[in-house]
Structure formats: C-alpha cells, structure tokens
C-alpha cells in the first residue's frame, strides 16, 4: 500500500501519495493560472519539481471576470 500525506487544496483537505508533485496535483500548467504553496507563489516551470509534504496548503487560481 502506498503511503499518503494530507494537503489542503483551495481550503479542502486532500489525501495524496507520498512523492506527489504540484504538477501531479494541478495538471499541466496553463496560461492564466497560478499556484502558491504555503503563501509562496511557485513558478509554473517548477511545478514538476515541487514535491508536496504533509500539511502543505495550496492555492490554485486563475483570472475570472472582475471589476
């Protein structure tokens, strides 16, 4: 059985396998999207190298209509 860790994605708890990267969790980086881990923006090119750890808090955002 794979060991798992718990992370928070956009305020919701998720269980993911040990060794999961930001790219595994969020998918292929797309223009107009961005992510931060524990309050620090992770540039898209670093997503495949950024391994997640127990308790990491991830914000994943994009541009929407606004004033």
């Amino acid at each position: 059985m794979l060991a798992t860790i718990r992370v928070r994605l956009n305020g919701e708890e998720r269980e993911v396998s040990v060794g999961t990267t930001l790219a595994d969790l969020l998918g292929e980086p797309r223009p107009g999207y961005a992510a931060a881990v524990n309050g620090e923006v992770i540039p898209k090119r670093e997503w495949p190298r950024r391994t997640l750890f127990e308790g990491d808090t991830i914000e994943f955002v994009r541009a929407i209509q606004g004033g």
Partner: protein
Amino acid sequence: MHPSSDLWAPLEPWQLAGRTLRSRLILGTARYPSYQVLLDALDAAAAELVTVAVRRVQPAEGAEDLYSLLRARGIGVLPNTAGCFTAKEAILVAELAREALETDWVKLEVIADEETLLPEPVELAEAARELVRRGFTVLPYTNDDPVLAKKLEELGCAAVMPLGAPIGSGLGIRNPHNIALIVARAKVPVIVDAGVGTASDVAIALELGCDAVLLNTAIARAHDPVAMAAAMRHAAIAGCLARRAGRMPKRFWADPSSPLEGRIEAPAWP
C-alpha cells in the same frame, strides 16, 4: 496600437506608468450577460485595458478562458485584488496574478467591510508600500481623500484611483471638490474608480481633470450594455475636450446673454 484607438481620435494619447494609452476608459469585465456582450461592449468603448479578478479554480475545471480571449484581442489585462481585507491577502493575490497573467500591474483593492466596500486606508497603504518594493506597478483604489491620495503617490503608486461613490452604487461623483483637490495636487494620473452610473458621470470626472475613468456595472447592467459603452466613450471625449476648453466661471445670479441696452418700449396695455 489597438485598432479601435482611432475611436478616440479627437484626444491625444496619455501615459500611465510608461504605457501610452488612447482610451480614457478602463473597464471591468464582470456582470455582463454573456462573453459576447462583454466583447462587443469592449469594442464599443474602444477599451485597451480591462480589469479581471483572481479566484480559486479546481484542477479538473473546464476552460472558458477569459485571459486568452482578451489576449487574442490585444486588450491589456489589469488584475485586481478585489475581496481582500488585509494587506497580506492583497499581496499574495498580486503575486499570484503576476505569475498567472505575466504582468506586474495591479489594481490594488483592500476593503474594510462587505457592506460599504470602502477602502481600508491603513492596510491599503501598507500593501501599496510592499508591492512597490516588490516591483509592482500599483494602481490603488482609494477613498476620495486628498491626504490619502497624496500619501499613496508618495509611496510610489503609479496612479491614484479615488472612488466617485461606493462600488456598484451608480451614485455618480458624490464629492467633486475632493476629486478636484486630488487632481490639483497629484503628479501621477488620477483615475476615478467606482460610482459611475451613467455617461454624464464620466464627463464630470474628466471635466474635473481626471485622466481616465474605471467603470464596470454602469455598462454591464445597462439595459443595452453595448450602446451604453459607446455613450461612455463619447462622454469621456466630451469631458476631456471641455476640460481642455476651460469652463466659464460660475455665478450666483443670472447674467443676460442678450444686451439690456437698446430694448424697445411697448405702449401700455389698453
């Protein structure tokens, strides 16, 4: 240059943070009945710069991608920090927006409460200071307070954007004298942001000497948003031209246009 820029033909271009703009309108993109109406309204207003918000997205969520849509049309994107109550939140949103949208421009909005949506001046100034330090081009949504506006300019903001009235209220410019005071002292562009209800409000802002107006709901919630977008553009042109022409002084009593000398005398009524 954006192809619609000749719709601003009578006006000279203006500078915002080193960028040359023709359009005197910066438009919000929210509350439109559809993307098509939004895009048609942007064309009718000849907008070159529009605001967007930054919000959470789920990894699997489909892409009706506003950013690509705007980019394909050559329209500049100005991310906002709407909904932030603290400097800390606003700074993280600005950093996320910089990564997502490849721009270091930010419409800085730090509000005090959901009822008024008025700026929280202390957090706003703190966020402005930090974002300037991090290399952002900061365009702060501020109270119509000449002291705070000057402070934000001194902190290195590229413009100041005082409200005319609360966001989404459509109440127009409630304190024109404060806007005039801000304009008189500012060395950076002044952009009225929020409160516009109809075209005459845009004209007043520009007559007061503002460089541009940022608006959203007055177009998006008009009965015919595309027609209102065109009206806003004409009003902006009229306001700029009137400012340049120089208005007459105001008088308390009437002053006849036709001379009183040389009037005829009619015989008394029988």
